[in-house]
């Protein structure tokens, strides 16, 4: 009976990757859009929101609410902060995905592509996604206040990632980099 299982899972795996590809082809149909000025403008907006993460996960607001308000307000605050924190983490994940999209746009055309490097990057990206999604799950379960130690580390990473991404975009698309750079400099980058 067990002998049909590998074939069943193989078929299922192929259907899953097919569904993923079709969905991705429809949603991200215009991949060239990555390097357009409109898109860079969006990234500039992301750059200027660096302090938002500090505020969402910082203890100041929570300490104030804990001290000055009844438990009902505390519950509302906690619930709303969780929603905000999740949105912020998803934005962080999107930023990293944009870095990977910029990379694959370069890699798919070059004949100097290094297979070992590509495999390492793919593995690294998958591990990052797993970790980031776990963090999202953790915030969803425990709320942003109890998770702030974990997220503080993420904040440091976002700052360094933003600086590195700026350098990357300066290479890939130097014409539009100045617009982006201005946006990045509005936040505090800590490499």
């Amino acid at each position, binding site marked *: 009976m067990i002998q049909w299982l590998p074939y069943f899972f193989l078929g299922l795996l192929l259907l899953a990757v097919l569904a993923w590809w079709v969905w991705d082809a429809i949603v991200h149909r215009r991949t060239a859009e990555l390097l357009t000025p409109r898109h860079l403008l969006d990234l500039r907006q992301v750059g200027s929101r660096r302090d938002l993460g500090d505020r969402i996960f910082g203890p100041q607001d929570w300490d104030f609410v804990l001290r000055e308000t009844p438990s009902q307000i505390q519950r509302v605050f906690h619930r709303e902060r969780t929603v905000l924190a999740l949105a912020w983490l998803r934005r962080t994940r999107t930023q990293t995905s944009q870095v990977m999209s910029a990379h694959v746009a370069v*890699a*798919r055309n*070059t*004949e100097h*592509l290094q297979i070992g490097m590509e495999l390492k990057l793919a593995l*690294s990206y998958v591990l990052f996604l797993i970790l980031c999604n776990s963090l999202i799950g953790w915030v969803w379960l425990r709320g942003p206040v109890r998770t702030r130690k974990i997220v503080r580390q993420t904040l440091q990473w976002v700052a360094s990632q933003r600086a*590195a991404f700026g350098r990357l975009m300066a290479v890939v698309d130097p014409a539009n980099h100045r617009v982006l750079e201005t946006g990045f400099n509005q936040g505090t980058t800590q490499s």
Partner: protein
Amino acid sequence: MFTQILWWTANFAEVLLLARSIQGKFFRRYPSFYFYLGSVLIVSLLRFAVFTFRPGSYPAFFWYTQYFAATVGYAVILEIYSQTFKRYRGVVRIANALLLFILAAVILKIVAGAVSGSGWPPGETMAALERDMRALQSVLLFVIIALLAYYKVPIGRNVIGIVGGYSFYVATSVMALGFGSLPGFGSRPAWRSALPIAYLAALMIWSFALWSYHANPEPGPESKIERDYKYVSEQTRRILSRARSYLKMGGEL
């Protein structure tokens, strides 16, 4: 009766697709795919002739021609491979490496089986043989689609249809044949209907996607990008490793 309807509908769809490709003169753009489609149509008509005039020979004829159709199916994979990757030198390098690895693994398995005597478990029936051929096709298609998705290779509607329809059919075949080739399950009519239904679904996808010719999008300018691959990949690697290390540190707090 239901099987008859499926069979005639599939034949009609195949004739329609072939006629449309001749009328639109785009059969030359996808020669291997239309060769596959034409072969399956001829096989289907031959089966009908054998079933009508020599019904006793039909079961054996069915499985031999099924084996033939599965073999010709590799032509579709070749078509997909050449149509999707030919303009993307980076992706073609990765694809070649991975497909060669799969080929080497299959050869190694066969040789190791022949030497040890335990062998590659030989197909006890034609259904099992076809199942193994389809399983290998599944692996090849999995690699191709994963690369298409990961590298976001832009392709036209025609090729999306060929990949989608054929992959759906192969995936369903592997599952149906894996289940159906078990002893005791062969006589169940449910799994026998799965293949014609899946094939008809694939034909519907092809009819929609290949009704008119849609060329693959041209890759954009790349001269500057080409030169900076090493720098870009090093930057990406650094970003990802730092991201992972920070998140890991966070998890330990």
